[in-house]
Every structure is written in C-alpha cells, then in structure tokens.
C-alpha cells in the first residue's frame, strides 16, 4: 500500500508539465560567461598577482633558492668573462694593456741538461 502511494506521487509529479524556461536566459548567461571569462584573462596577463607573491611571505624557501641560484650564476658568469690582461679603471677611461708572455719569467720545471741526459 505504501509503495503504491509512493509510486502514485512519483508518477503524478513526473507527468507534471509546466513548460520551459525563457530562452533569453541562456543568451544572457552565455554573454555573462563570456564577459567573466574575458575579464579573467586580462587579470591573468597583469603582473599584480606575481608581485603579490614575490613580496609576500609565501614560499620563502623557493624564493631563497632562486635568489641563490641567480647570484651563483652571476658570479660564475663574471669570472668566466674576465679578459686576460684587461684592466678597467674607475674613471671611465678604458685602458687595455696586453701583457705579452715574458719568457724570462717562465719557470722551467724540467732541467734541459737532465732532459738531454735522459735521452
């Protein structure tokens, strides 16, 4: 009896037809969706969120690691780029003095006399 009653209510409501919603609603919603979507894209292009992250206390470990990495590479880069024999003065003058290898200042590690004797 109880089951019949439930079925009766379900059938009654499922057969109930009240019509469809206004079609203009769909158009308005689609337009709003487009607007929302376009405004969020502009937001994504701005750097505000990046700077917020950069100057906030979030991800301090990651930021420290990145800064260390940048410093490390800049130091290594400077060391690799030093031109031999080039001295840069601080008074905006640039003087380039090329040092020619002076054979007299070479330290010979092998004794030529002893080398000959080895042959």
């Amino acid at each position, binding site marked *: 009896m109880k089951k019949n009653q439930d079925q009766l*209510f379900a059938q009654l409501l499922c057969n109930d037809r009240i019509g469809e919603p206004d079609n203009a609603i769909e158009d308005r919603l689609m337009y709003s969706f487009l607007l929302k979507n376009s405004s969020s894209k502009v937001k994504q292009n701005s750097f505000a969120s990046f700077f917020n992250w950069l100057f906030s206390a979030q991800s301090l470990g990651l930021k420290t690691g990145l800064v260390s990495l940048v410093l490390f590479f800049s130091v290594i880069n400077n060391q690799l780029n030093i031109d031999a024999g080039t001295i840069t003065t601080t008074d905006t003058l640039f003087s380039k003095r090329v040092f020619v290898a002076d054979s007299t200042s070479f330290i010979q590690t092998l004794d030529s006399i002893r080398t000959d004797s080895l042959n």
Partner: protein
Amino acid sequence: MRQIVLGDQAAFGELYLRYKSRMYYYFYRMLGNSADLANDFLQELFMKLIEKPESYNPAYSFQTWLYSVANNQCKNEYRRREVRKEYQSAEALEHKLDYLNDSQVEPEQLVEKVFQTLDQLGEEHRSAFLLRYREGFSIREIAEILELPEGTVKSRLFNAKKILAEKLNYLKDEVEF
C-alpha cells in the same frame, strides 16, 4: 565544473541544458507557481555558478550541491516574504483541503491541488516532497540538500504524504496515469 572554471563555454552550455528544466520546475513549484520568479531564480542560480565556480566542492555530488544552492535561494525568498506574509488560518487550510474532494479531477488539476495543499503545509514539506518524488533523491541526499537530519526529512515526508494520501485515496481511482 573543472572545465567551467577554466573558461570552457561549451561545458557551461552543456551544464545549463542538462539542468535548466529541472531547476526551473523546482523554482516554479517552490515559489508559488510563478513562471517569472522561476525564470529570475534560474538565471540567478547559474549566474552564481559563473561568478563563483570555485564555491563548488568536488567532494560532493554536483546535483546535490546545485539543489542545495537553489534551496538556499528559495529560503532567502521566503525570509523576504516573511516580513509581509499574511498567515492563513487553520480554517483556510481546511477549506483548501475540502477543495480536493471535488469529483472528476484531471491529472493537471490534481497536481495543482496537491501543490496547493503542500503550500499550506510549508516550504520545508514542499521541498522534501519535490526532491523525493520529482527528482528521485534518496533520503540521505535530501538531508544533505536541505541541511537537515535524515529523521527530520523522513518525518516531513511522512506528514506531507499523510495529508495528501487522505485526499488522493479518494481521487486516485478517478485519475488515469
């Protein structure tokens, strides 16, 4: 929903098509059979989805969440109406119930009379009744949507059925489904 959050308009269109009729029916029956109000509330519901898609928790079923948002909209509307509500007396309710005893009732008229009776019982009975018999939700799902204990949902359904059954027992033989 994930695609909607990413801005997929086709996904949103698909979601709207899937739920528009069901949600329209729910609003229509919950808000005093007004097509205008049902259209307004349907639009408002999907606007919320556009504006704050992140408010949906994927841990829950989407349709349960959608009905729960719709139900909250209806509750707000009832609160707004409460300010100027004219309480109908018990005599008025009796009068409405007597109206159900009219003979030769068409199915459409019968539904209208059922909702007139449910209107008198209150929106909390109407929502539980609709969710159970129109949408086929389980007691647990209805409890989630209405944010009520399962026992309360059961007792509301029982009360609604009890009053309606008295009248429908009289009428059901006259109605062909």
